């Protein structure tokens, strides 16, 4: 199991479009993905779950990725967050 933290760097935060991008990415993998923020723990493959976090710029999300392809999934998730989902930073 991999546990890591990522920060939201894009100005608009984790709104609908980035949330959709994120769950499309996590759903590709067999590994289970859980995200935790402010005591709320949600399934990282659920769009409603990810949007519920309402993660604003500067906030930190704790990821927990567990499964056969956890390494690849982890790398891709970190890249996605660092790139700010291709949005203005």
């Amino acid at each position, binding site marked *: 199991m991999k546990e890591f933290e990522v920060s939201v760097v894009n100005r608009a935060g984790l709104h609908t479009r980035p949330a959709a991008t994120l769950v499309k990415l996590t759903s590709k993998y067999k590994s*289970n993905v859980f995200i935790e923020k402010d005591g709320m723990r949600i*399934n990282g493959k659920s769009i409603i*779950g990810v949007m519920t976090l309402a993660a604003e710029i500067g906030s930190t999300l704790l990821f927990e990725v567990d499964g056969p392809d956890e390494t690849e999934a982890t790398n891709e998730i970190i890249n996605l967050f660092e790139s700010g989902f291709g949005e203005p930073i």
Partner: protein
Amino acid sequence: MYNNLKVIRKKEVQVETLLSSPLNLQVKTGDSGLGNLITESNLHRPQLALAGFTELFTYNNVQVVGNTEVYYLRSLDLERRKKAFENIVKFDVPCIVITNGNQLHDELIEIAKDNNTALLSTDKDTTTAISILSVFLNDQFSPHVTIHGSFMDVYGVGILFTGGSGIGKSEIALDLVERGHRLVADDIVILNNNSGTALMGTGTNLVQHFMEIRGLGIIDVRRMFGIRSIRFQKRLEIIVELEVWDSNGDYTRTGLEENSTKIMGVDITTVKLPIFPGKNITVIAEVIALNYLLKTYGYNASEVFTQKLNETIMKKTKNKNFTDERIINYFQGDLE
């Protein structure tokens, strides 16, 4: 999957939160002390503290001032009254709740303001007020978890569907809604243990009754199916764990043994349900609910059947034909 649930407990609530309790509290001190933090669900009546004995005074509790305290204060002259009241507000008291619609003297209200203590007043009598406040604060400080699943009210039975992503929880919920059952929460379910004996479930304020259907996107169940299709809270009674059919899976065949899951110290009946194409989970969910109701009202089908079987086995002394075992002894002649 229930072992890694993170149990969260509020450490503090603001005094302002009390205003949303069913007590209908009126603020007597303006904004003073509304931001004070309550850290205990216990209540305290400050009788001895008013009289001057402040050792062991649990000042960080919400203080409830009833007739006894108010009559005592009234019996004092101005200076001694101020002194007595200062005995309690000189501590970090979060707020004082005055019951029975009693009025405190103006000078005491000023002292409370100066010490940044909120004075809240209710028309309810002390016993009722204490009972309502206790329930409210217990709920505020109760442990809770968030869990991934769909939570439905099926024939009045609270059923939580869990299972991996994409297994079809939301679709089952939607099918149940279509059949007249009510959605409590989809995807993120918050479970609270506020009584010690039961778990209450609700959704998040942001999501409410929106849900995602794969391939469609986000829909609003409340708008689409109307107010009768939803509810805000329900007691959790059964967990239905959905999983892809596994021929080696250990699924109950008789229903005699009951599985349960412990969440925050409360045992919840749990049904492991294999799914495969052509299996109508919605109807099975309804049957699970009805069977639970039968059991709750004293009828356990598997036990009754077992008893009938045992009686039949015990009665079998001589060989009988299998036709002797029919429900009816002979078919009537009307051929119906």
